[in-house]
């Protein structure tokens, strides 16, 4: 628990969260663009009707039907966008960021001159932060396990603690390298 675990976890977790882009986000993005196009067309019809008081809107194009279609289309577009943002803003963006944070934290922990149990503490905080924050967003957003969102707060607090105390660890643990001449080894 001196930083190596964070680096290993970070790379594997990054693979899992980055994968959400091509596997889930890109296909949904295409579907979302199509819904947006359909919505724009039907909303255009409603706007045209509003301009001329729906004159000539009869049969399949009666005002009620056109407005109803526009409402349903807007609802579908909003729903798709919400799904997209749940994936993009949740497990994909936060997961990538927290995976990279664990890699960076691991590298820093390997180089800091601080007691071993302090390193262990920071390592656990960053791992807990990623697993309980973006990990729970992953379970909720990708697998629909809505109960998981309740646990994200643990991750938020652990990440916050990790960041604050990593700052303190850096104050005491980053040492200026001493050259052999300064150590008196060279004459």
């Amino acid at each position, binding site marked *: 628990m001196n930083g190596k675990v964070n680096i290993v976890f970070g790379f594997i977790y990054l693979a899992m969260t980055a994968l959400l882009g091509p596997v889930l986000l890109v296909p949904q993005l295409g579907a979302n663009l199509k819904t947006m196009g359909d919505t724009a067309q039907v909303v255009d019809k409603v706007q045209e009707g509003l301009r001329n008081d729906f004159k000539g809107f009869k049969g399949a194009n009666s005002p009620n039907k056109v407005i109803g279609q526009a409402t349903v289309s807007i609802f579908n577009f909003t729903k798709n966008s919400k799904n997209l943002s749940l994936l993009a803003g949740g497990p994909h963006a936060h997961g990538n960021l927290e995976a990279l944070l664990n890699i960076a934290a691991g590298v820093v922990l390997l180089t800091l001159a601080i*007691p071993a*149990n*302090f390193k*262990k*503490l920071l390592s*656990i*905080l960053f791992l807990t932060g990623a697993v309980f924050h973006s990990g729970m967003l992953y379970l909720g957003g990708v697998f629909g396990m809505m109960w998981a969102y309740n646990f994200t*707060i643990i991750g*938020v*607090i*652990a990440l*916050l*603690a990790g960041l*604050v*105390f990593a700052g*303190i660890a850096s104050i*005491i643990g980053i040492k200026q390298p001493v050259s052999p001449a300064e150590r008196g080894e060279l004459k």
Partner: protein
Amino acid sequence: MDNAPYNFYPVWDPLLRVVHWWNAVTVAFQVITGSIILIFGEEIPDALSGNLINMHSVVGYMFAAGLITRILWLFIGPPSASWRDLLPLTAGQRKVLTDTLHYYAQFLKGAPPLYMSHNPFAGLIYAVFFFLASMQVITGVVVLNTPEDLRDESALLAWHATGYILIILYIIAHISAVFIHEFVERHGIIGSMIHGSKTFTGEEWKELTSQNP
């Protein structure tokens, strides 16, 4: 009181001291902002009230960060920060606990009980505080995530307010006990939370280290 020279002996690790003061400052801020919200809630203009709640929430998260660190440190920190040092698990700790209660019952007459890091009675109170503070964090987060118009009706807000009163009682008890022990025992417990070392006579230190080799 004998005139034996007192020496400094390291007791508290640096992280424990940093977390202690981090928690102390954030709790003090939370009590001040919480008191303003609770006492003047209705009279405060909406904009100011919103800012106060934002500050209370941000510092609440900062306190939660300190609390989770201290709780983890109970399990991976050095012996003086460990949960084993808080709870009266050994016969020696239980003896100091009963001696402390006896000492209080006699209004601080006689020799105060000798202990190296946490007084076992105080340790028990700290364990209760960790639980109480965790409940404050949980109820605070849930209330914050409740829609604004439903917050006042939330039962958790009442729990949060009760926890606030218990924490104020804890602060009063903690500070009073620290000052009393500081002046009666002369082990420099206030300074020790800054520089990490308590003062003991050579004989006291010998006795303590022979109990906890």
